[in-house]
């Protein structure tokens, strides 16, 4: 890249702050958070006012703000709720790019000339978005050179609404003069790049603003941070993420499929979309390309058409394309006035912006016969999951993830496979994902069988009396026999003698929440037959929580 850099394409961004909270239908003047894997992904201004912040742990947020409403994150709900906003903005221009649910952008050159200038256009966009949101949340508008600067301009509007603020009206849009983007960006923090690892290093190096980052020589940035650094440097300099493409993508990359019979249900359409996404990804990868911006279109048997442009920061995978098709169709089906009247007959995907694919990472196994293509393996796994989803239903397929918790049952949870992208690295499946200490947790190794619900048991001491854990978490007399399957006489096992035991480990959870308060103590017991159990006692009743098999 030599010579004076050309500024980005002038763009308008509409940003709805705290979108997951708005999408969940919670008024923003109530403290609420949206949580994924016990981490806050979004919070309402009222919660923020109380010290809650994104990326906090849920419990930390609850400690700061006990009356908090906690909502589980569902990206599909976000996307569906955002569809009316995008549809309203289509009155201005047909090319709305959805960056993510809650934020969309479009190039302003044409519409701005037509409607009479950036200010007027931005005002109209703000009116339209506010009209759709109808006071449920604010919509902020920014215009600048390049979608990145436009997004930051939209965000730079001061958040007006305190917990007792006025209802959300129309904020004055932020319009950065043409050519003014580098100056506007220079004062912004590097955290706006949204690349935590890079930002962490930059902050430790003392580079805190985009201006300071942009002032670094580009060659040094590439040498130190690689291609990701180069992209970030372009953004910080007020350029587009990528140099403008010199040639438009060839038309033969688009893929389409006819649906016969027409798909009436979202599952059927999503299943077809999955295959279509695979086909597109195959075409792209054969050319060594990847897609960063994509048009998804659908048509019904009554000729209604629905097209959206989706944009991603990284590169689309087959999985993420299929996910966006699902969001889009779901949003269309729930859009009220413009909802389709018939089944879907045609789906098409048109790559709008194509870039060279990143190199494929080959994984070498030490003992294996040779190189395993990690991308290929992940794709195969994803295809297998998609097939099973097609047969058993999307909700029936789950994948495990680690979570923080004390009992073995809390430490592994099953999440719907549809909610995760198995083609991406999944840190939540790695040992070491849970870094919090969880005092009182059952130590590793984990038991082989966890009984849900726990199996009742009888634990007696040498004199035949039930073993009791007192208020200090101590036992007066050690356990001598265990009988699994208490209660009904015929289902009860034989008493087995205890060879040794460990514990008790008392555990007093959620004492601040009367409805969910649990006071338990656990005991590991090894019988003379060699069987090991994890026993739990709650209000004087023993049960086998897990078996070390």
């Amino acid at each position, binding site marked *: 890249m030599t010579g004076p850099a050309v500024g980005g394409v002038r763009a308008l961004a509409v940003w709805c702050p705290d979108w997951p909270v708005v999408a969940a239908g919670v008024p923003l003047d109530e403290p609420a958070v949206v949580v994924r894997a016990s981490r806050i992904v979004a919070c309402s201004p009222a919660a923020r006012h109380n010290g809650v912040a994104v990326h906090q742990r849920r419990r930390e947020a609850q400690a700061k703000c006990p009356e908090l409403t906690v909502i589980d994150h569902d990206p599909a709900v976000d996307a569906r709720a955002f569809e009316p906003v995008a549809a309203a903005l289509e009155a201005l221009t047909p090319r709305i790019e959805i960056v993510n649910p809650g934020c969309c952008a479009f190039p302003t050159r044409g519409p701005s000339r037509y409607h009479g200038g950036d200010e007027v256009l931005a005002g109209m966009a703000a009116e339209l978005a506010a009209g759709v949101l109808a006071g449920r949340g604010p919509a902020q508008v920014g215009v600048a050179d390049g979608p990145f600067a436009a997004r930051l301009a939209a965000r730079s509007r001061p958040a007006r609404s305190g917990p007792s603020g006025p209802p959300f009206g129309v904020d004055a849009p932020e319009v950065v003069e043409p050519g003014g983007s580098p100056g506007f960006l220079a004062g912004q923090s590097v955290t706006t790049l949204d690349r935590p690892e890079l930002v962490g290093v930059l902050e430790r190096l003392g580079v805190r603003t985009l201006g300071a980052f942009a002032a670094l020589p580009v060659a040094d940035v590439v040498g130190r941070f690689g291609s990701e650094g180069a992209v970030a440097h372009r953004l910080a300099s007020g350029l587009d993420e990528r140099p403008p493409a010199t040639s438009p993508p060839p038309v033969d990359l688009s893929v389409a499929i006819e649906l016969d019979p027409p798909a009436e249900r979202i599952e059927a359409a999503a299943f077809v979309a999955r295959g279509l996404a695979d086909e597109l990804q195959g075409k792209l990868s054969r050319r060594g390309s990847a897609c960063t911006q994509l048009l998804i279109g659908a048509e019904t048997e009554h000729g209604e058409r629905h097209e959206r442009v989706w944009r991603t920061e990284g590169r689309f995978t087959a999985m993420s394309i299929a996910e966006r098709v699902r969001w889009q169709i779901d949003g269309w089906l729930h859009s009220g006035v413009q909802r389709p009247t018939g089944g879907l007959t045609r789906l098409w995907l048109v790559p709008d912006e194509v870039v060279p694919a990143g190199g494929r990472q080959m994984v070498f196994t030490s003992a294996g016969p040779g190189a395993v293509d990690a991308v290929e393996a992940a794709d195969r796994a994803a295809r297998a999951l998609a097939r099973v989803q097609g047969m058993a239903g999307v909700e029936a397929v789950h994948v495990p993830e680690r979570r923080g918790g004390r009992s073995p049952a809390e430490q592994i949870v099953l999440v719907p496979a549809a909610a995760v992208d198995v083609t991406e690295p999944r840190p939540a499946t790695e040992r070491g994902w849970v870094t919090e200490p969880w005092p009182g947790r059952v*130590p590793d*190794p984990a038991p082989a069988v966890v009984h849900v619900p726990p199996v009742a048991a009888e634990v007696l001491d040498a004199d035949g009396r039930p073993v009791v854990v007192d208020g200090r978490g101590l*036992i007066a007399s050690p356990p001598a026999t265990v009988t699994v399957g208490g209660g009904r006489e015929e289902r009860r096992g034989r008493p087995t003698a205890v060879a040794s035991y460990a514990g008790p480990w008392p555990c007093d959870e959620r004492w601040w929440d009367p409805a969910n308060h649990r006071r338990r103590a656990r005991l590991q017991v090894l019988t003379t037959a060699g069987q090991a159990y994890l026993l739990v006692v709650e209000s004087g009743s023993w049960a086998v929580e897990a078996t070390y098999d």
Partner: protein
Amino acid sequence: VVLVAAGPGVRRRAADARRLVARVRERGAVLVTVGGDLPGQPGNVQLTVTAARWEGLGEKGSGYLRRRRVSVVASGRGEASRPRRAELWLPAKEGELAPAEPLAVPLPVPDRQVSASPALVEVAV
């Protein structure tokens, strides 16, 4: 390598088992069944835990279950027809599988089979 695991809770019908095994052979995959052979489809290798002993519990409630030493016998057809025995940590301290140094005095084999005796069956590597 594609690995298919069938747990003890899976409904086992001879027809399903035949189709599954044929499919696994055709794809060059490995089938592992837990809790015995599929009906009519004996595995190539059977892995059986013959003895097991937990370690880590101390006196008067101290310690915790740290690891379990198991004796595993592999038997089966073809190359595996001569039974082989190995001492393993299952699980080892981090929950993984690790080889164990053989003891001078082998673990006592109980009269009946250890209740936790997963018969692992491997078909068509």
